[in-house]
């Protein structure tokens, strides 16, 4: 038997989010898996049909803890201490990355971040695979100590269709946490059009654009397609476009139907944020650039000459 604690997260509607459903599929793939899902606050109705053994509801943490996660870490540490799971799984989200790491170092446990695969059929321990060197390589690790604490990259597993009838119980550590750092406010940045993460079309620009002005052409194309504008880290760091547009390992992850990369070399750090797109389209002057190894369609050429006719034809097709 492998006892697994899976820390769930919610989407904007309060339902169990997609990454958590994928993590449940990963957990159920372990040998003789017995899965407990921990969720903060009252479990949503859909949770009662999850294909897991048990659901544990945790006391709701305060808004001031959001982003700091002192209370969340204390609560989940107490739950791990009292239930001694062999594996603890988080999504590789802001929450999971921070709480997972803090839990591991607080309890002197092994931690593997951003895993794309987890298994335990090869011996005593748990085996995980994670991308390293910005995605240029994969590393397979064995974790012998218990618990093994991991975060899973979204999209690494497909959510399953199985259902179950888990028992539901509440857990409250009773611990009171004195928070040293506190959130005093939240500033939402203005955004026009579709959210980058939700867009079906993303038009991204990189170093090859040479300056900030060409992003207006990319914006025209994104508008014609009903999509959003993205960028490589190089373009953002150069100040050509705001960092909120950055796609990649340290930016946003997108999975549109079509990802159009203009003047982007396709470094693995960038591809980590867009490789799950349905089709990648590359426009780049350099035929040897890495983006052509990742793209489904490509044009070797000068974007300044390619884009106007591409945009005009898109407008005609959409008219």
């Amino acid at each position: 038997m492998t006892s697994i604690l899976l820390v769930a997260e919610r989407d904007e509607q309060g339902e169990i989010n997609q990454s958590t459903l994928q993590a449940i599929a990963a957990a159920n793939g372990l040998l003789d898996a017995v899965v407990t899902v921990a969720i903060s606050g009252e479990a949503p109705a859909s949770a009662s049909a999850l294909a897991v053994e048990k659901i544990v509801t945790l006391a709701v943490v305060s808004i001031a803890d959001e982003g700091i996660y002192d209370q969340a870490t204390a609560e989940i540490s107490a739950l791990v201490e009292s239930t001694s799971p062999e594996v603890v799984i988080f999504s590789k989200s802001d929450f999971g990355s921070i709480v997972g790491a803090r839990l591991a170092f607080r309890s002197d446990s092994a931690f593997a971040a951003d895993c794309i695969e987890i298994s335990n059929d090869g011996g005593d321990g748990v085996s995980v695979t994670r991308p390293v060197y910005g995605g240029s390589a994969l590393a397979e690790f064995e974790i012998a100590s218990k618990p093994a604490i991991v975060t899973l990259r979204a999209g690494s597993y497909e959510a399953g269709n199985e259902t179950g009838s888990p028992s539901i119980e509440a857990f409250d550590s009773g611990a009171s946490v004195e928070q040293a750092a506190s959130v005093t406010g939240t500033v939402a940045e203005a955004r026009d059009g579709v959210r980058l993460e939700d867009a079906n079309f993303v038009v991204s620009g990189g170093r090859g654009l040479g300056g900030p002005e060409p992003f207006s052409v990319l914006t025209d194309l994104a508008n014609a397609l009903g999509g959003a504008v993205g960028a490589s880290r190089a373009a953002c760091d150069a100040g050509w476009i705001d960092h909120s547009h950055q796609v990649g390992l340290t930016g946003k992850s997108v999975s549109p139907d079509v990802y159009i990369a203009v003047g982007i070399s396709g470094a693995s750090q960038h591809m980590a944020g867009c490789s799950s797109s349905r089709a990648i389209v590359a426009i780049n002057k350099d035929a040897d650039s890495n983006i052509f190894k990742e793209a489904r369609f490509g044009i070797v050429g000068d974007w300044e000459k390619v884009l106007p006719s591409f945009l005009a034809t898109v407008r005609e097709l959409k008219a």
Partner: protein
Amino acid sequence: MGIGITELTVRIVVLAKQVPDPETPPSQFKIDESTNTVIPPNGVPPVVNGFDLTAVEAALLLRDSGADVEITVMSVGSDFVMDAMKKPLAMGADRLVLVDDSGLDNIDSAVTVRVLAAAIEKDGPYDLILGGRQASDWDQAHVTLGLSEVLGLPLVSLVQKLELNGDSVSLQRVIPDGYQTITAPLPSVLTITNELGEPRYPNLRGIMQASRKKPEIFSLADLGISSDDLVPKLELKKLYIPESNKQVELIEGEDEADSGKKLALRLREEKLI
């Protein structure tokens, strides 16, 4: 404490890691699968992790704003290349502290955190501990987070802006659609994100000053740690380059404008637009 350091000086330590140059072209990125190590590409020297240089920049911006700060850069490892490790000094940091020991070959992040914590306790106390958001080699992003737990200090991650106010620090923390404003006490542990801005280029004066500075070196023995005590929690079994079997379909028209038109028509044919 160094010369000119008073009780009012805010002592900052910035964690820095030596990594293979992430700008190495993918064609030159190779792995020795018998030892599970990256083969250093010919003529491409290692660099300080770029995200850590952003953390150095954050400390320098505090100085630029008029704060009395002392900036120490700290790293653990072996085989340090001094030309690389001195870059933060050339940018304007005051000191470089290296825990340099052959017992620190191929360590995991659990060991790194333990050694850093011991070095910080020996060299400190510090008011701020800054780290980059992640390292460009193992992309783990948790050494700084783990350090806050081991040292028992408050943690704020993904900081894009910071301002000292007496015994606290006002922060902006990046979230997907904007940022949070956060107040943290001193001492605290912060991870700095690249939204802060690009690290400055060293000027000639900085490079000259850095060349005259010597790193202060600790061995594991200096920290009272035996290398036998440093047991990694993650055992690397296999390191390899994933195979890509994607085949690009190149669109070629009579000229580039024609290619653009053909591309749109091809995407429509595939019902993608």
